[in-house]
């Protein structure tokens, strides 16, 4: 197992280098650059030259990439072109926010999806099953920005309530932080719940049809044991896979929700970086998100061995 983890982590290195080159190339290919953004309408050829020199953009492209990567390998991801802030600490502080949002969204999704998904598979084609399926389909189909906007409007008009606008961290003010984060987590969680519910249902149905479930039942095992220990555990591999992918995409993919609820997350940082052509920020964010994605998936793979002891990586 240890060898497997080390192998996977080593495999990460070429992936990250590949991504960093891809981002560098793409950032060069898209029109517009950071100097135009900084100078705006005050742009003159002299000022432009000064800024290109200052930001190191006057050097050949290969040199620019080389400068960046040699620093990055030493753990220095540089400073933002726009704000001069060191990139890495900024990413870490944003990551905490996005991670909190993602974890809460997952918990909410599980609370909604797992019981309903299991129930729906047990009462297949019953009224409950149909209702659950329709609700799940709605969860998957309604875009989260629409439900978020409607929710905000509903709370404002109906209860004269708006989530607090000033962000406070989890450790600084727990209650205040929850008031800011719970609503967006609920919106994200309800969307996730749709697909988790559908996956739980179909996966459970698959397993419930197996002969060994019949054997368990014939043995006289209580229904609770049959469902949770035998059926659910065995059907949980695809569910865990799905959740792993969802957590990964939640890292950078919640930008619309972050904007609507004014939450300073990682997605917002990446988007601002892209629109300002702030290369060190974009590079840092995307690499970090990729890293988290791979790590989450590695954890999922490791989790498989606990769920299903037949799986082994040695």
């Amino acid at each position: 197992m240890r060898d497997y983890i080390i192998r996977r982590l080593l495999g990460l290195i070429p992936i990250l280098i590949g991504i960093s080159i891809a981002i560098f190339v793409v950032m060069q290919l898209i029109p517009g650059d950071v100097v135009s953004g900084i100078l705006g309408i005050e742009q003159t050829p002299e000022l432009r030259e000064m800024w290109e020199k200052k930001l190191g953009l006057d050097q050949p492209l290969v040199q620019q990439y080389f400068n960046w990567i040699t620093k990055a390998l030493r753990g220095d991801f540089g400073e933002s072109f726009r704000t001069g802030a060191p990139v890495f600490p900024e990413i870490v502080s944003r990551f905490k926010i996005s991670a909190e949002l993602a974890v809460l969204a997952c918990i909410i999704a599980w609370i909604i999806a797992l019981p309903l998904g299991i129930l729906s598979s047990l009462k297949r084609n019953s009224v409950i099953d149909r209702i659950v399926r329709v609700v799940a389909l709605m969860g998957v189909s309604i875009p989260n920005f629409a439900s978020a906007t409607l929710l905000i409007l509903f709370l404002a008009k109906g209860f004269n309530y708006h989530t607090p606008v000033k962000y406070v961290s989890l450790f600084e003010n727990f209650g205040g932080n929850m008031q800011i984060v719970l609503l967006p987590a609920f919106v994200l969680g309800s969307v996730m719940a749709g697909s988790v519910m559908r996956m739980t249902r179909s996966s459970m149905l698959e397993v419930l049809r197996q002969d060994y479930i019949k054997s368990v039942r014939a043995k006289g095992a209580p229904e609770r044991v049959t469902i949770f220990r035998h059926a659910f555990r065995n059907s949980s591999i695809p569910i865990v896979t799905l959740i792993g992918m969802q957590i990964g995409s939640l890292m950078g993919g919640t930008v619309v929700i972050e904007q609507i609820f004014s939450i300073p997350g990682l997605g917002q940082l990446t988007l601002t970086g892209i629109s300002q052509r702030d290369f060190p920020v974009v590079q840092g964010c995307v690499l970090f998100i990729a890293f988290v994605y791979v790590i989450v998936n590695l954890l999922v793979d490791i989790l498989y061995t606990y769920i299903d002891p037949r799986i082994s990586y040695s």
Partner: protein
Amino acid sequence: MRKVLALLLIAMLALTAIPFAMAEGNVLRYGTETEPAGFDPHTVSSHASLRVMAQVYNQLVDVNENLEIVPELATSWEISDDNLTYTFHLADNVYFHSGRKMTAEDVKYSYERILNPDLGALGNSSSYAGIVDTVEVVDDLTVKMTLKEVNVTFLANQSSSYCSIVDKDVVEANEGSLLRADGGTGPYTLGEWVADNHVTVNAYDNYFNDAEKATFDAIEFYVMTDANSRLNALRTGAVDLIVADTAMLDLVNEGDDIQIISYQTRDYVGLFMNCEREPYTNPLVRQAINYALDREEIIDFAYNGTAAISGFIPASLGHWAVDVTEKDYYTQNVEKAKELLAEAGYPDGFETVITVGLEDGIRDMGIVAKEQLGAIGIKVEVKNIENAQYIDDWKTHNFDIMICHNGAGSDPNRGVAFFFSSTGSANIQGYSNARVDELCVLGAGTTNVEEREAYYKEAINIILDECATATVACPMAYFMASPALQGYAPNASNTSNFAGVTLAK
């Protein structure tokens, strides 16, 4: 299992019931639309940053809403007869936020910082401080600047944030950058900055000008990119003031307890035709496009009918403006437009691309312009691009027609020379007329207002008649506030002046 879930749910509900520690004291909460890009007044042009820096920094002089130059850090000044030497007398009670007293040395340091080529300061161009040759300290409270060339708008231009006076010690303590530091003298000090969420400025007790002292304990600028969220936050009292636009006017309902604050900008929007590119090299084609436009219809569609028809020197510039509604080509005349096109050799029209971006009003204008130009046989493709690319195309003159939103500034030297003289750095349409160039030089070389007016009006009329652009309107700017907000009167010279503003709570 069920018990655990139930407990979790109850715990979460209980949390939301805990009253959130709201900002205490007398705080103005301001919902804005974009994230600032740091707070170095010499190197940052971002609108969101300027809004904050206006509270933190001062300049030598200020320009009021009537375009008059008024004292700020300098209480008075003398200008030599040859208009090349400016002597400023500084206020005696100005203290930086560090507590140190501001002296003539600081003014000298600030201007030297702006002129230092390694900084790339925005003020280091002929529009601002770039024409300063030497800065000399006469005594502790007197500073003398000598210019390389005469520019009568020099004094007014020193009111720009790019010419702020900064604290040398703070600059040096922060490795030469004020992006995240406070080296100002303003009524508020720079406080907490949580990127993509909020920036706080706190009242500075030792501010030198009693009349403009902070009336709030703090101002909190929130980044709320989503217009709907901004409006709902205002509705529910989560913020007191928000940045708005014409599209948001429709979202305010009858029963909403919201005050709408507006002012006529000194901006204008219009179609900029690339005079270096066929067929726009031909003035007849440019004229035809002017005749083809129904400006009222554009304003109704893109600006809710609230903007005024305007040339590139809007009526809000007072006596400098030329009334464009008297110009024949500002009234739609499709027949005339077709005739002009035929005369120019395009009886069947041609194909062209209109580049739009940046903001909703511009995008909407593209849609209407496409229809209206279609009526005279011009086939338009509207190309909608995002900000950075828009600025790039703007800078490299890469467009057939680009719809722009420009600020005409406070003096025609900006509105005319910057955008239309052949050497103007914002002359993106490549327009060139020898007489206009000559008039711009004449206008910048004399202090006699009547003479200047005559020069600039001649230039404006030439540019209008040659149809270098097809300007459409001067839009309004909007804010929305809770009824408790009193005394906030933004104008085209200053939208971030909170002196005397209060919240009746």
